[in-house]
């Protein structure tokens, strides 16, 4: 006659060597320090700043509750930044562009300067317009003035 406990333990007795291996691995890891430090040591370490851990927890909870709001705001700011970069010319870029014109623009400016100089220095090379004929005013009427010779 056996109790249920004895029946169960006997049924699984064959697995004991495997369990021994597991136990030895875990305790060896503990001895080598590959598993975490003992909880007491952890608590001692935590004891240095108990308020900080509580503060961190509450701060994390607060941020976690605002996660969707923060994500939305971040997305909006990213869009704004993208649009701003895309459409607004950089003022410094404009200055450099103005400071260094292209060779074609330089050539055109030189030609324009030369033309203006030629206009100022040299005589005009075109013929002067003919003087308009001098007009003698015609008598105001057909009535001849009275003279003594006609008599």
């Amino acid at each position, binding site marked *: *006659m056996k*109790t249920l406990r004895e029946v169960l*333990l006997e049924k699984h007795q064959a697995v004991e060597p495997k*369990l021994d291996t*597991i136990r030895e*691995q*875990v305790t060896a890891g503990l001895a080598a320090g590959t598993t975490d430090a*003992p909880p007491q040591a952890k*608590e001692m370490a935590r004891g240095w700043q108990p308020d900080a851990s509580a503060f961190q927890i509450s701060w994390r909870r607060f941020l976690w509750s605002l996660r969707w709001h923060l994500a939305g705001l971040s997305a909006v700011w990213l869009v704004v930044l993208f649009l701003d970069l895309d459409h607004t010319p950089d003022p410094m870029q404009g200055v450099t562009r103005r400071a260094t014109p292209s060779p074609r623009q330089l050539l055109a400016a030189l030609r324009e300067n030369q033309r203006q100089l030629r206009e100022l220095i040299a005589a005009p090379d075109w013929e002067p317009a003919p003087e308009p004929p001098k007009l003698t005013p015609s008598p105001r009427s057909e009535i001849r003035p009275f003279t003594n010779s006609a008599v």
Partner: protein
Amino acid sequence: MLVVAEPEQLPVPRARAGDPAAWDILFRRYQLPLYVYVFELVHDEQASLDIVQETFIAATRHLGSLREDGKFGSWMFGIAHQKCLQRWRKQGREAAALEELAAEPAESGDDPAELVIRAEQEAAVMKLLNQLPVAQRSVLLLHFVEDFPLEDIAAVTGTALGTVKSRLHYAKKALKELIERGES
């Protein structure tokens, strides 16, 4: 060979200080009962060994959360129980495994040693044990394998005391019926 020690003799304070030899004694004491409990719930040898190993590692990491040294055993079984639940959760079996039963008072004067099984009944008892719902099986194993008080079983399984009593009542009733049928 199973080493049985009374809870008060277990070197829990030394384990708290990180003494590997103390951990070895504790693990040696509970390794087979833990394995039996886990195996009878998940029915997979490799998974059960993995859960026992995870339980050992979790115990070394979280011993600081244990308030009473005398509750070390039920605390370890509680970790193993949670590991089983995690496994079922991954497999999507949690709802079926944790079905609730109607609460009924337990029979008074229950003793794990009272239920004796003859050699020819062993196979039938094990078969019945596997046929029980997981929730009843869990309570029955904790009661018979480690003789935990009902309050500790409630803590291990994360259920109300009334629920534990009810589950234990139904499970024992079913086992007794089977044994009596065998005797007659």
